[in-house]
Structures are given as C-alpha cells and as structure tokens.
C-alpha cells in the first residue's frame, strides 16, 4: 500500500540521516554512544517531523481513523460477550433486511443488462381500475398495427409465453429448456449483441412462414454445449420442431423476464400455428417498446391507445359477445416503465414483500435498541476512563468519534455476517414461491446495489444505536468525578424509554404476525368444495402428432391399470385445470331461460371443465342431485352434463335441475341434458367466489390425472411410473405431485407473509425480552448494596421483589399500551393496503390484539421477574461488604 511505503521510506531516510551524522562525528573522534546521542539531538524530534512530513501527503486523517479502528478492535475484543451479543443481533436484523431487499431488487428493480433500459416501456392493456387484462393480452394482428404506428416514437417488440419446452439434439427430444418466442426485432431493439454468429433479422419472422432459426443464451451454450463454437449452423429440436442455431446472445442477457433465465429464443412466427398470425381473438403476446429519447411517454401512449381503440372498434367489438362488449370497450393502453423487464412475479409479491421489509425494519430497530442499551451500560462503566481522558485534554469530538468508531465497527461486522445470512435467507424466501414448470430463476447475486443497501443500513444502524450514547458519555461528564467509582444510579431514563419502545414495536410485529397467521389458517381451512388430501396429480405429455384416438385409449387404459392396484381408490382426469386457473369459459343457453326473463343483464358465461369418468369421486366433489358422469357418457351419446349448485340455483331456482336441457356455445346446435348437480367448488382459487360451472364428459383428453389413493406418495409415484410406461411408451411423465401442494401454492403469498412475520415477531419478542432483562438486571445489580441494607433492616425477599417489579411494571404497561394504540392506529391508516392481504380477519381483530398483548406482557413479566428474584436472594452481609 502506498501509505505504508511512504511511512517506511521516511523512517529509513531519517534513520540514514542520523547514522550519517553519527558516522561523521565518530570520524572526528567522538565515542559511538555520544555521537549517536548528539546526532539525534541535532536532528530534533524525529517522530514529530515524520508526522508533519506525512501530513504533507494528507494521510494523517486516515491514520487517525485507522488508529481509532485499531483501538475499537482492541476494546471490542476485550469484551467478547458484549461484542458477540451486539454483532449477532445486528447480523440478524441487517441480514433479514438485506434478504428481503435482495428479493425485491432481483424481482422488481434490477435494470435489464442492456443499453439505456429506462427507454423501455411495457404496453399494458386494461380496463380503468383493474390491474391488467391477463399477462398475455395482444394478438398478432394487434401487435402488427401497434408496431407500425410506433415508428414515430420508437420501436415495439413482442414476446410470447416463456415455457418449459422439450429440447434435444440428434433427433431426440428428451430434455427441457426455458424457451420463449420473440419478434425478430427483439434483440436489435434491446441492443443485445451476438456473442457468436448473429441475432434475429427481420426476415426471420415474416408472416409467410418464418425461418426456423434459434438463438441460445450464453449460459445455456456454455452449460449444454461447453461453449463449443461449432454449434452455429447445427440443428436442434425445440418443441419437437427442428431449428437451426444461428447465434449466441451476449453474456448476462437472459431475456426480459426477471424471474426467468431463458435458454433458447425462437422467432414468433415459427412457434405457432399460422392461423394465430391472422386471428385477432387469440391473445398470446406481451408488448414492449423502446421509446426514442426525445419522446415523452404520454405522447407515445396517446398514439398506441388511439391505434388500439381503432382496432377494437374495427376488429373486436363487432363480433364480441354481449357480455364482453362493455369490458372490451372500456379497455385502454397505458405505458408502464419496464427498465427491469417484465416483472410479473415481482409485481405479484411486491406488496407482501414491502410490508415484510417494513416489519423487518422494525426488528432491526428493536435490535438497535438492545445494542444501544448495551453500549449505554458499557459507557457508564467506562465513565472513569472517559473522564480521565477529557481531563487530560482529549477533545470531546475525538472521544465521540472514537466511541462511534466502535459502534461503526460493530455495525459493519454485523452487516458482513448479515450478508452471509441474507444469501441463505433469500434462497429460503424463494422456496416459498410456487413451483411452476419453469422454476423461478432470479439473479440473486449480491451486486453493488444490494451491498450498497446493506452498507447504508449498517451506517444508519450505527448512527441510531451509537451516536446517542457516544455523545451522552461525553456531555454527562461536565463534572469531573474522578475519585469515586462509577456512580450511576440504575438505568437511565433513556434506557428505560428504549425498552418501552422496544416492547411497543414488538407488539406491533406480534399483532401483524397474528393477523397474517389467522389469514393463512382461514384460507387453509376454508372449504374448497373438494378434498385435495390423499390425491396425487399426474401430468403427462405426448409427442405433438399423437392421434386423438390413441390419446383417448391411453388415458382410459392408464386409469384402469392404476385402479387395479389395491391402494388406489379412483383415478381420473380433467381438462384444462381444476384448481387455480379453473375451466375455460364460454357462452351458454339454458332452456326456458333468457337474460331478459331474469330482469338483469347478468352474463350467460359459465366455467367449463371436461371431466373423465370418476372425476368427481377422485377429487371428492359431493353429489347433490342425480348422478356423476360415468364411462358411458364419454362417448358423447347422448350428450349430458353435470352442473354445480350455483348454476342450478341461478337458472332453475328451487325447481329440480336434473333433466333440464342446456346448449353450450362450443356444441353448436346440439343440446345436453343435465344428469346431476354437484356442490360448489372453488376451481379459481380459494379467495374467489364459486362460479357457475358445467362439467361435460372429456371430449378432449389433454389434462392431468387425479389419483385418490391410500398409499404414501413415494410408493404411489413408483406405481404410476411403472404403469404409465407399461401402457404407452410415448407417454412422458412431466410431474407427479400431491394435490395439496398445488392448493398450497395458491396461498404462497400468504404463506410467505405469515411465516416471515411470525419469525420476525418471535425475534422481536426475544430481543425486547433480552433488552428488558438487561435493563432490570443492570438496575438491580447497581442497587445491590441498597437491597442489602433494606434486608438487613428487616425487608423480606418478597418486599425486594415487589420493589423491583413496582419499578418495572409501569415500563411494561407503557410499552404494551403504546403498542396497542400504535397497532390500532397503523391498522386504521393502512387498512386499505392490508385488508387485501387478509382473509376472514379484520385489521383490528380483537382476538389477535388480545392474544398478542397477553403473550407479550407474559414474556415481559417473566424477563423482569428473573432478575427481581435474584435480587431478592441477596445475602445482606455480602452485599454490604461489596460496598
């Protein structure tokens, strides 16, 4: 380092100077000892001159900071217990903050690794007041129109759905990759360069049948192909279609989805049926635009919106069903900044994560309170040292800066440990997210921004807990009490206020945790209408060209073979999805029922699920009237359907539904007879109301299996694997999973919030209990002699306990009281934000408030009782001798 070299050079030089002079004197006949002494005297104060010399380079300030740090290091090492406690509480607090910030940053705020990401915006199609009209809300023709109109303001590009796609080389598709289809200008507009070969060109994406070319990501290329440049020109199988690899994208670029790391990009037009390219009613695209630097977003938005409205009036509204017309007509296009790409997962978890960040900041505040109390206590016992140094002429500023350096060192050490904790913690957080077919792949490396956040947190923390005590230590010292020992009368008012504040904050956290836990419990115990326990789901996939007949046969045979096993009760299948996304929707006509006859313009749209034989039995959906669907019904002759309770009530009121006829839009003119009514089930998620549902025999077999069995999952999985392979070799098992996990995934946000807020709540209670214990224990230890005298004068141990408690209980009452008031106020102010996060519980829930208050008061009383009991067992003789 430059500074140490400068130091050494100077020392060498000065030493040489003195030696030269001494040599000269010795040559003149002087003795060695005398010569050296004389030489030194003539030179003057060598240390001082060396210091002034170094000052010329402006290093002395650093030198002083370094000295303060060394001093701080020494003093901290001298009291390891204090240091460990402080560092540990800070590491927990700062680590938890960093973890949540990391996830927020990675999922929402990390800019795309492209040039000028702030010029990129997403086109959001939505009705006013609603979030968005689905994630994929643009058809190809609409994209083309918008893209043409964009020329004056920038350039628009489109991205299809990111998917786990079949992949392979040498003609065999047995791998899975993260793939996405993009418009040909995707790379050029984002200004992503090829690392190898080329990126897409406009002609790759012509409507007349684009070329089947693919670009790989750098990560995938090096992982799968060992960075072999001969990949260019090679043919790969993507989604069972041959593609030629034309390039590898620049390093770091993994697509525009924050939560996905894309392996393969293909052009839009090559990825879908040609029909989709001209069909204005199929929405499968997401649109982004890079605006020219001189264009105001509002100006571009007006242009896009205008084109969109024209498209609506021209193409979409004329054919729209009466139900959809008003929804479509109210839609507008707005521009949303997309410098971090399309952050769909981040947006979903933004609110819970921000609330958690707030909660964890409170935990850190409580930890700060503890450390501040520890330091106050420690400074009190160092009062003598500080006084002495002030008396010897040390400046107040220097002592404050030295004491603060200690705090800073504690905070920085805590932060360093916290970063390590955070790396582990973020992965734990990610595990709360649902397991999609493409697992979340956030970039969680702690980059500059995250480390900067941690550093700022550490510094602010150090100021919070360190500056106050440091200043106080110096100011309190106006009178020089050098002679007496440290005469401090118990914990200061500051310390007591700190503890009360900690209790109040803890109560806030406890109540928050209570609310989120109740929410999760309510969601988990709420009646879904079906029974997911003991059901395992099985997802299959088949090669694209498999004929429908063969699929149908295979499905029925798998069902039969599985049911032949002893522990398997029912196996069935359904399409498209029976939980989460629900069925597809479509128009319906009910015999003897018209919209007018009902007197309102309620829509005639219902949810539909294509159900295999035994479907209702497999998911445990109860029958109310008539019968379930059976194998006979699957032939479609005669056409039948089962409806749910809400459907029956809506259309038929109290008259029986079985035997009535309905006509589905999908069936054309044919009518179906209702053969059964089942209970309402929440196919669209636990928070949704039960929709009106129609279940029809599975005319399309494409969906997943539901297998109700008395076997454990492992055993059942083995059976399933064996039977599927034995039935049909081309069937590929995508996933076997307990149905309950799917159900749990639907409440992943609530699970995350509940789990973390409880951990934070527990942490807060423990921290503030330790704080309270410390303050009371310190107070009683300072009063040992007083208690000794009282007991010598006849006080009972119970009296001493009461004495201690009488001073502590007001503290607890004040803290808890402030907490209750604070929580109620906060709940009131934030009710708009948090009611959306709660389910079946109000922001001010009496049971939760009372339970949390009792719990905290109990823990606090216990923390106060321990030192009080110890104080009451003092032997008066020993106590007095101590003085």
């Amino acid at each position, binding site marked *: 380092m430059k500074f140490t070299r400068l130091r050494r050079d100077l020392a060498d030089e000065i030493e040489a100077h003195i030696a030269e002079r001494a040599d000269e004197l010795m040559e003149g006949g002087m003795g060695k000892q005398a010569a050296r002494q004389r030489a030194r005297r003539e030179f003057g104060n060598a240390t001082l*001159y060396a210091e*002034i*010399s170094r000052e*010329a380079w402006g290093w002395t300030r650093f030198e002083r900071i370094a000295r303060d740090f060394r001093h701080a290091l020494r003093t901290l090492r001298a009291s390891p217990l204090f240091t460990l406690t402080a560092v540990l509480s800070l590491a927990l607090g700062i680590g938890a903050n960093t973890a949540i910030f990391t996830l927020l940053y990675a999922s929402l705020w990390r800019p795309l690794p492209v040039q000028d990401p702030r010029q990129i915006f997403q086109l959001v199609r939505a009705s006013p007041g609603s979030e968005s009209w689905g994630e994929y809300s643009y058809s190809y023709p609409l994209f083309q129109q918008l893209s043409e109109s964009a020329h004056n303001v920038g350039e628009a590009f489109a991205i299809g759905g990111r998917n786990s796609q079949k992949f392979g080389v040498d003609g065999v598709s047995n791998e899975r990759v993260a793939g996405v289809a993009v418009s040909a200008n995707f790379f050029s507009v984002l200004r992503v360069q090829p690392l190898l070969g080329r990126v897409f060109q406009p002609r790759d994406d012509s409507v007349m049948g684009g070329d089947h070319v693919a670009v790989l990501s750098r990560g995938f290329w090096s992982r799968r192909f060992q960075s072999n440049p001969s990949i260019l020109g090679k043919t790969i199988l993507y989604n069972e279609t041959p593609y030629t690899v034309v390039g590898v994208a620049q390093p770091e670029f993994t697509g525009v989805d924050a939560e996905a790391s894309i392996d393969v990009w293909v052009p839009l037009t090559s990825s879908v049926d040609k029909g989709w390219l001209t069909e204005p009613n199929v929405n499968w695209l997401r649109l982004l635009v890079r605006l020219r630097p001189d264009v105001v977003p509002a100006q571009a938005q007006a242009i896009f919106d205008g084109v969109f409205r024209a498209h609506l009036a021209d193409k979409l509204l004329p054919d729209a069903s009466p139900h959809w017309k008003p929804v479509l007509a109210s839609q507008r296009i707005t521009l949303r900044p997309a410098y971090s790409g399309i952050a769909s997962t981040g947006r979903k978890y933004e609110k819970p994560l921000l609330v958690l960040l707030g909660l964890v900041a409170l935990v850190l505040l409580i930890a700060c309170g503890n450390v501040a109390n520890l330091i106050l206590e420690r400074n009190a016992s160092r009062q003598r040292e500080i006084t002495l140094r002030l008396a010897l002429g040390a400046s107040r500023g220097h002592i404050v800066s030295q004491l603060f350096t200690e705090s800073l060192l504690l905070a920085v050490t805590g932060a360093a440990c916290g970063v390590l904790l955070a790396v582990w913690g973020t992965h734990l957080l990610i595990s709360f997210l649902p397991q999609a077919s493409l697992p979340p792949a956030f970039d969680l490396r702690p980059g500059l921004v995250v480390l900067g956040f941690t550093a700022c947190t550490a510094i602010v923390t150090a100021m919070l807990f360190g500056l106050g005590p440091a200043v106080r230590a110096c100011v309190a010292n106006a009178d020089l009490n050098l002679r007496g020992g440290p005469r401090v009368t118990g914990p200061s008012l500051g310390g007591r206020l700190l503890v009360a504040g900690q209790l109040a904050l803890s109560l806030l956290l406890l109540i928050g945790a209570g609310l989120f836990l109740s929410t999760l419990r309510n969601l988990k115990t709420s009646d879904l209408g079906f029974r997911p326990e003991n059901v395992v789901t099985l997802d299959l996939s088949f090669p694209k060209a498999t004929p429908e007949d063969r699929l149908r046969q295979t499905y029925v045979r798998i069902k039969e073979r599985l049911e032949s096993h002893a522990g398997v009760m029912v196996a069935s299948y359904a399409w498209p999805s029976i939980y989460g996304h629900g069925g597809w929707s479509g128009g319906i006509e009910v015999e003897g029922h018209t919209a007018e006859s009902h007197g309102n313009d309620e829509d005639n749209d219902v949810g539909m699920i294509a159900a295999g034989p035994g479907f209702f039995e497999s998911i445990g959906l109860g029958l109310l009237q008539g019968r379930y669907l059976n194998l006979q019904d699957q032939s479609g002759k005669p056409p039948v359907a089962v409806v749910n309770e809400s459907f029956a009530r809506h259309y038929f009121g109290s008259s029986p539904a079985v035997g009535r006829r309905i006509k589905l839009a999908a069936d054309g003119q044919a009518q179906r007879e209702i053969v059964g009514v089942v209970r309402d089930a929440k196919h669209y998620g636990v928070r949704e109301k039960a929709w009106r549902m129609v279940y029809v025999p599975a005319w399309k077999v494409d969906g997943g299996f539901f297998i109700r069995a008395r076997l454990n999952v492992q055993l059942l999985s083995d059976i399933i694997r064996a039977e599927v392979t034995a039935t049909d070799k081309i069937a590929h098992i995508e996933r076997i999973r307990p149905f309950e996990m799917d159900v749990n995934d639907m409440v992943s946000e609530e699970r995350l919030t509940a789990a973390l807020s409880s951990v934070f709540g527990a942490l807060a209670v423990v921290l503030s209990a330790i704080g309270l214990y410390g303050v009371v224990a310190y107070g009683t230890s300072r009063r040992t002699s007083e208690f000794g005298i009282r007991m010598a004068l006849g006080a009972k141990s119970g009296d001493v306990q009461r004495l201690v408690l009488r001073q502590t209980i007001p503290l607890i009452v004040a803290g808890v009281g402030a907490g209750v008031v604070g929580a109620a106020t906060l709940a009131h102010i934030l009710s708009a934000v948090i009611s959306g996060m709660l389910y079946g519980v109000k922001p001010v829930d009496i049971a939760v408030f009372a339970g949390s208050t009792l719990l905290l008061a109990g823990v606090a009383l216990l923390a106060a009782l321990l030192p009080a009991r110890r104080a009451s067992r003092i032997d008066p003789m020993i106590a007095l001798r101590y003085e």
Partner: protein
Amino acid sequence: MENKVNRDLFPGALEMMILQTLRRGGPLHGYALAQHLKRTSEDLLQIEEGSLYPALQRMLKAGWVAAEWGMSARNRRVRIYKLTATGRKQLVSEVSSFERMMDGIARVMRPAAS
C-alpha cells in the same frame, strides 16, 4: 505546528534555500543537503535538521523535486533529491518575490531620508 518548527524563517524560505542548494550543488541526499545549508549559511540560521524533511515531502508532492534511492559516500542507502524543471521555475519566481520583499523591508528599515 509548522510555525513552531521554523520560527525564525518566513514561510517558503526553507523551500527556496533547498531549491537553490540543489540547483548549485546538483542532486543531494537529505543529510548532505542539511550540511550544505549549514555550511553556506555559516551557521547563522537556526534550522533543526529534521525540519528539512516536512519541507522535502511538500516539495516532492508539488513536483519541485524528484527523489530516488541511491548510495551515500559512506555507502549507506539514502534518498537522493534533485531539482525538476518545475522546481527550477518555482525557484525563479520565489527568488524574485523574495527580492521584492527584501527590497520592501529595506525601504521600511532605511533611516529617514529627510
């Protein structure tokens, strides 16, 4: 603190003398420089030898002198200083301002003409 060390000299005087010594005597190490100053001033100036070093460090930083390690006549490893072009220019300007100052002082100190 600096004032305490060179109480007898005006600010910049030591630097100016070092520059002049290096111009006349060529590259010198610290001890030789001190001896040179003492000898030529015939011990009239009370300069502590150590006070040379802060001045030398300031001049190094300003780029008026350059230094490198070499050997002294007594075969000891020493740092040898030599004048740079900037230092030469600095010397000229300091000498001229010094002369102006001396002139001014002399005028004030001169016995009244009338």
